[in-house]
């Protein structure tokens, strides 16, 4: 318990040291937190459930912002063709986009870290196989691969998560491996080895905690990348199902109407998408900068 508290305190100090004096990064962090909260609370704060076909009425379709719906409520950001309230759709879309990205990045990172550690510690053919697979993946642009996979396996939230995981794991595995390899050069690993500590313990207790930092630093970047990729795939129509639109699919829907002056259908989700990715990237940049050895060494002297 005490330990937990202490860790929390260290974490808050760390966060403070990362962000203090960087107003843009702070704004990004706040923005990101607001987006996450909105996404989490969407079922309670959204004016309607845009996935519930029962309450959608095509008679409410294509209303501009601030219109009154058939049931007497106001649609602040207008509706799409099916009478879906854009504000609610954006909230739920945000929820879906974040969910997909979070899940994909955490699973992909876990897999990548595990494989990277395995490659670094096992060496030999295990390493060859893993690293060739990484090469295979890295030499191929993720978006192309995801496109192929989604074309093969069809669309759906689960499918797009798989496709994104495949986009995420390889770079993490490569990073973990190189970080673990450089960690393995260090003497504490030798110390563990000569003390007869089993390899799996060395991997989990020595290598993992020490080589994961550079991977964790990349996680926010991976997150924004995954959000962008999901949006792109959904925009191309191979992402999430049409009844549960993510931000990308909302933009795609609205794109059809853009020329007819019904700008609100795609502009709002677009603005939210760009702001979300921007917030994450600003934070990610700051974290990376903070962890940059060159800038850091200067900080410390």
């Amino acid at each position, binding site marked *: 318990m005490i330990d937990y508290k202490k860790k929390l305190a260290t974490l808050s100090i760390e966060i403070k040291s990362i962000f203090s004096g960087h107003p*843009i990064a702070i704004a990004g962090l706040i923005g990101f937190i607001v987006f996450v909260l909105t996404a989490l609370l969407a079922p309670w704060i959204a004016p309607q459930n845009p996935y519930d076909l029962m309450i959608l009425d095509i008679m409410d379709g294509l209303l501009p912002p601030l219109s009154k719906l058939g049931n007497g409520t106001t649609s602040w950001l207008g509706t799409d063709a099916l009478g879906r309230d854009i504000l609610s759709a954006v909230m739920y879309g945000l929820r879906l986009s974040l969910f997909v990205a979070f899940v994909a990045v955490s699973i992909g990172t876990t897999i990548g870290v595990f494989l990277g550690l395995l490659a670094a510690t096992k060496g030999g053919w295990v390493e060859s196989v893993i690293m*060739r697979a990484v*090469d*295979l993946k890295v*030499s*191929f*642009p*993720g*978006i*192309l691969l995801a*496109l*192929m*996979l989604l*074309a*093969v*396996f069809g669309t759906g939230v689960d499918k797009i998560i798989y496709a994104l995981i495949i986009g995420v794991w390889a770079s993490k595995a490569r990073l973990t491996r190189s970080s673990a390899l450089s960690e393995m050069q260090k003497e504490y690993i030798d110390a563990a080895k000569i003390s007869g500590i089993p390899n799996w313990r060395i991997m989990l207790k020595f290598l993992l905690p020490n080589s994961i930092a550079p991977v964790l630093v990349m996680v926010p970047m991976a997150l*924004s990348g995954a959000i*962008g990729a999901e*949006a*792109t795939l959904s*925009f*191309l129509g191979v992402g999430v199902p049409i009844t549960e639109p993510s931000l*990308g699919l909302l*933009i795609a829907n609205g*794109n059809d109407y*853009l*020329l007819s002056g019904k700008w609100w259908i*795609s502009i709002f989700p*677009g603005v939210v*998408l*760009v702001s979300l*990715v*921007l917030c*994450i*990237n*600003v934070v990610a*940049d700051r974290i990376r900068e903070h962890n*940059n050895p*060159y*800038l850091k*060494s*200067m900080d410390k002297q």
Partner: protein
Amino acid sequence: MINFILKRLWHSGILAITMSLIVFFGMYVVGDPVEMLSDDEFTEQDKIDLAIELGLDKPLYEQYFTFTGDMLQGDFGTSFVYNRPVLDLIIERLPATLEISLLAMVIGLSIGIPLGIFSGIKNNSRASKIISFFTTVGYSTPNFWQAIILIMVFAVFLQWLPASGRGLTNSMFGVEWSLLSIDGLRHMALPAVNLAIYKICMQQRLAKSGTQEILYQEYMTYARAKGISRYRIIRRHLLRNILIPIVTITGLEVGGLIAFSTVTESIFSWPGIGKLLLDSIHMIDRPVVVAYLILITLMFVFINFVVDVMYAILDPRIRHQK
């Protein structure tokens, strides 16, 4: 050297085979080309005939070996949809992709790198912060959203530039290029800019972090301590070193360009290989998809090789490894 090339070839061979296997069998799972090519009024016999015609009646592994066997002899097969040799299709469309990719690359490099070096050197200046903010925005904006905005603003709203198609092409070396006519360039402008925005932002960020990394190297301080002028330090000591990471990344980013050109090409209806790929995926035109991916794999292998060579040319430490 020869060993190295052989090893590279061996690796890329494995890469290409794995890729072709995944795609070949993957595409088999997706859908049935016969279904895609048959009308509703096709009889069962028609479908069987069509399958025989396309060579799809044989066991899948046999199809695979036939396909790869032919491919090794330079025959990438015939498109189910276009009924023409796949290689012809790809080669005909490759220039379109190449020209926007290259244009985007040139724009990206010529704007991104100077901006990046500038903001790396003047890291704390207001201008640098503004530049960095804009590139962060630019690279946080998904490609397709940029495309939408570009079309809305420049094609529809201002009517300055066409939003789709390739425009007038002129022939050079027996290949049609849009680059060679004003009309063609006008058509290229939006898709190329669409691709380039990301490049600019990416290159700016890379050049910036590269610059900063090099700025903190001891030899930079030492160069100052020697009394060398600031201008010369940037021109010789900084630029020469910064080229190394930039060339590497640029080489690898060519892949990203080709990949994103699928998105850009489909939005701008640019008739390049990216669009061909998307269409072919939708139409289960397996020979085209497989051939595309194998060619792209080979291209990446080649690019990687070129990057390695460039790396050595730029970095004498690698060249002289003993």
